[in-house]
């Protein structure tokens, strides 16, 4: 019997808030960074991925900063910086599920502290691309199972290219080449994000998922484009990933996770 396919919500943290993202360049504030985790904790999730996508990776404490609407414009507050370790400590304190944290991790010591303080895996992206040995170093210290290499990519003509620095810089490297290399360097999993599909709600980029799945032996998490159960079913049947992830669709509807999970199980897909 094989392992269950995991349905993974992704929370995007940007400058003090959880945001909804579109094509990596339009962001809408949707909630408080800790409350969202606690809400998800009641949903019996398979796993949670939490990514800091702030430009400078600075984290602000937002303890007294509850918001209700969908926009933060005009809101005034004085943010207080807190370090990533305390942030993860607080995130994990009521998070009884596998937790991945990513964003700005660029040294072994920070990685170690994040893993010691309640995260189970770290996700590394731009820094891993620029310093490929960092992947093997992390794998050696913490084991491959704790290392997710996250890859953002964009379609240009017929090929898919890796983008780094929050999707701002085209590396001109093809996505399959980098995915295979990340695996060789010791990545335990690949998180594949399609920038074109980000926030588009038009389904996964099936061809992209198939291509990357073919070059990998390690588990693949696909992300970007999911709007409903059909999209998940289609990408699973067409490209056989180990996990399916999404951010936006779990943000707005109450109990959306359970509803989608139930539907996928009803369709005899291999979910928990």
């Amino acid at each position, binding site marked *: 019997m094989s*392992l269950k396919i995991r349905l993974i919500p992704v929370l995007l943290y940007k400058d003090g808030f959880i945001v909804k993202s579109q094509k990596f360049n339009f962001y809408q504030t949707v909630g408080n960074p800790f409350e969202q985790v606690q809400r998800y904790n009641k949903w019996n999730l*398979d796993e949670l991925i939490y990514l800091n996508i702030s430009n400078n990776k600075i984290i602000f404490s937002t303890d007294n900063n509850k918001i209700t609407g969908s926009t933060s414009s005009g809101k005034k507050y004085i943010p207080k910086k807190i370090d990533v370790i305390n942030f993860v400590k607080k995130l994990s304190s009521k998070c*009884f599920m*596998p937790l991945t944290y990513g964003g700005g991790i660029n040294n072994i010591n920070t990685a170690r502290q994040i893993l010691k303080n309640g995260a189970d895996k770290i996700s590394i992206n731009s820094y891993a691309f620029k310093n490929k040995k960092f992947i093997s170093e992390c794998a050696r210290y913490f084991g491959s199972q704790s290392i997710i290499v996250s890859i953002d990519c964009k379609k240009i003509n017929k090929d898919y290219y890796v983008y780094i620095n929050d999707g701002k810089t085209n590396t001109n490297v093809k996505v399959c080449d980098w995915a295979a290399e990340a695996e060789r360097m010791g990545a335990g999993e690949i998180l594949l994000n399609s920038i074109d599909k980000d926030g588009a709600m038009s389904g996964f980029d099936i061809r992209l998922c198939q291509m990357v799945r073919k070059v990998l*032996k390690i588990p693949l998490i696909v992300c970007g484009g999911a709007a409903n159960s059909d999209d998940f079913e289609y990408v699973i049947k067409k490209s056989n990933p180990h996990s399916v992830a999404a951010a936006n669709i779990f943000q707005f509807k109450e109990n959306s996770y359970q509803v989608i999970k139930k539907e996928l199980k009803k369709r005899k897909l291999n979910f928990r």
Partner: protein
Amino acid sequence: MSLIGIIDHKFGNTKSVLNLINYLNVNYKLCKSYKDLNDCSHIILPGIGSFNETMTNLDKLHFIDSLEQNVIEKKKFFLGICVGFQILFSKGLEFGETKGLNWIEGICEKFNSKKKIILPHCGWNKIISYKKIEILKNISSTDEYFYFLHSYMIKFFDDSTDIKFAYTKYGQKFISAVEKNNIFGVQFHPEKSQQNGISVLKAFCSL
């Protein structure tokens, strides 16, 4: 009055277990010294790391004799998680052969890599034949899944008079939970298994 002792042998990740115990609102004590175990009624050994590393650290910090006294002689309730479960057995083969606590006979070895499986065994898998184990009896048969993360395992063998095993399949059958008198062990991570995990730790703390 129960006092739950959580062993902190520095290299294991105790934080997640501590978070869940904290959430359960029970009395607990973080046991950094072997002497701390004497005050506790229940002992939890969380585990992340290798068999070898865990045994070496426990030995260095004099926990092994103290565990024998508290768990075997005084019969305090014990729960080993992941590697904390593996070291209950006779020996482990991770990074060379290491002697375990030897409270239960068995060898902790690597999954057979000839089977077409990805290692580590990481994700949600089903436990089978678990209803007889006291701390698992409340798990509903509609959701028997727990979160696993490991590359080494103890091959499944049949129950004996005083030992009860639950198992899980991944290429082969391996032991995913055990009960022997006052001793419990689980290969999965209850602290990461959402509602099911909360239920297991709650059951253990209420023994």
